[in-house]
């Protein structure tokens, strides 16, 4: 469950401020954050994900107001409740696929469950790549590993920032199916920020930032 009320954000050292519309997404449902570049999609995603703090208004996740958390508590909350997928599937290239995934529970302060890692890898068709180095993966495989990493801790929210913008139609279709499937399997709320019009038909719940008040 994501709930945004009276949210506004002022960028550092500028007079530029964005007022976001109120919205909420019930637990387990999917939402699309639409808007052109510069419309504040990434900013909103970062605020919801607890990466940005200096905002006005209320952002609650699972009935927890993020502003009420201390910085360390927010780090912890983020690690356990939120899974991020970025446009560039940035994986830690010094580590193998398996260790990249193990990093997720470790950094969130959760026990590392090898069976869970195997299960997630299997569900994404990556069993054989478990011991592979990141440099040995294809782009598609790397994206799947990034998705696996995001869902490994069974987060209640999955935030995806432009996951499809660099992909052709076929791969775009594949990735968005993967995301919605994975979110459904894990009972997570999925929020996708994009300017990619192709996704409109896939997720009905839309928050359009360009038509903000």
């Amino acid at each position, binding site marked *: 469950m994501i709930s945004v009320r009276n949210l506004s954000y002022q960028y550092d050292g500028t007079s530029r401020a964005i007022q976001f519309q109120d919205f909420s997404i019930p637990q387990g449902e999917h939402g699309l954050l639409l808007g052109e570049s510069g419309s504040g999609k990434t900013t909103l995603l970062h605020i919801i994900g607890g990466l940005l703090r200096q905002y006005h208004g209320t952002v609650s996740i699972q009935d927890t107001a993020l502003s009420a958390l201390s910085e360390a508590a927010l780090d912890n909350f983020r690690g356990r409740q939120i899974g991020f997928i970025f446009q560039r599937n940035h994986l830690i*290239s010094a580590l193998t696929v398996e260790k990249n995934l193990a990093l997720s529970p470790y950094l*969130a302060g959760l026990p590392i469950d090898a069976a869970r890692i195997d299960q997630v890898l299997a569900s994404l068709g990556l069993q054989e790549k478990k011991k592979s180095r990141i440099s040995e993966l294809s782009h598609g495989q790397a994206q799947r590993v990034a998705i696996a990493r995001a869902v490994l801790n069974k987060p209640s929210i999955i935030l995806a920032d432009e996951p499809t913008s660099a992909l052709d139609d076929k791969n775009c279709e594949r990735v968005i199916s993967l995301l919605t499937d994975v979110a459904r399997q894990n009972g997570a709320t999925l929020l996708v920020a994009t300017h990619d019009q192709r996704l409109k038909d896939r997720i009905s719940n839309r928050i359009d930032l360009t038509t903000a008040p």
Partner: protein
Amino acid sequence: MSLLTLVWNYLKARPLNTAINILLLSLGIAVITILLLFSQQLEKKITENAKGIDLVVGAKGSPLQIILCNIFHIDFPTGNIKLFEAERIAKNRLVKKAIPLALGDSYNTYRIIGTNRAYAELYHGELAAGAWWNEDLQVTLGAKVAELTRLKLGDHFASAHGLSEGGHAHEEHQYVVVGILKPSNSVLDNVILTNIESVWKVHEEHGEEEEDGHETHGEEEHAHGTTFIPSPLIPTVAKGDSTKEITAMLLQYRSPMGAIQLPRIVNAQSSLQAASPAFETARLFSILGVGVDILMGFAYVLIIISGLSIFIALYNSLKERRYDLAIMRSMGATRTKVFISILLEGGFLTLAGSVLGLLAGHGAVMLLAGMAEQAQRTGISGWVFYPQEWIILVGSLLLGLVCAMIPAIQAYRTDISKVLAGH
């Protein structure tokens, strides 16, 4: 998965960088370790060997040479002194003990020392086998001499002139081994002890062939004819004998006054030279010290460069890793965790470098002590550990932390949102 595995994998991902950083530091640490082992052990040996000897009286010449020759037995004598002149000094009321030494020959480069039992007592020499030398041409071997020359009790050998191998051999007189000493960790281990008369005997026949071997005998009889007063230094010789010579005499003072007066009394005699072991070894240290200081300086430069290199490596890798760090923060890592991971990386590099350096330093000394006989004789070993090594270890760890501090602070301050948004 832990911070350590993370750090280890980051280091492993840049093997050349990691290796050069560790190597550079270990080189500096190894040089320092070698110098530490050598200088500490050498200093200890030198002071131990000179213990109980307040003054050495020899023939006019370099006082340092007198000390090197008569205490450490690694240099040639400055010449001989007349026995009666030595007696006169020994009689002085400021002298507590006087030990005569007659040098000149060696066996397999191990020096043969003509002296009396007081010399062995100086180093608390104890017998491991056999007996002390008693008659002419009997010898008692130092522990290391016995070990390295493989001479056994009852073995005969001819001495060679000088200290080096291939000196003129005195085949006419064969020494016989009657005793072997226990290791004393002193210069005693590397010498062959006999009485002064033996040294004379070997040399009289050889050096002064026109005067035959009975000369000593005749003189003794002559002395008996009047009243025979034995020399206080060598009882078989008459007091005041004007022909006999010794190489040097080791003195122990009765009181601190001796340190003030005796050297002056000795040096006033034109043929004699007094050398103070304390003063000369201090001078030796200061001469050696210049070389040690230069090497030390070199080692410190190496360490500073390696510190810089580690700093640059971390700083550069941090630039590449800004995104990694931001991702890790997005996955729940706290600022502190990220900060510690960078410090750990620096600490790991320097710890590995210093441990490797310490091992290499000890290894090098061990290798040297095992291979070179000269090093073996000094008794320097690589198996000795000094508390200073802890300082090296802790110091280098601190160096690593200091070098990693700036990159770590940068990692701590990283604005995750900006890094993640700004691609």
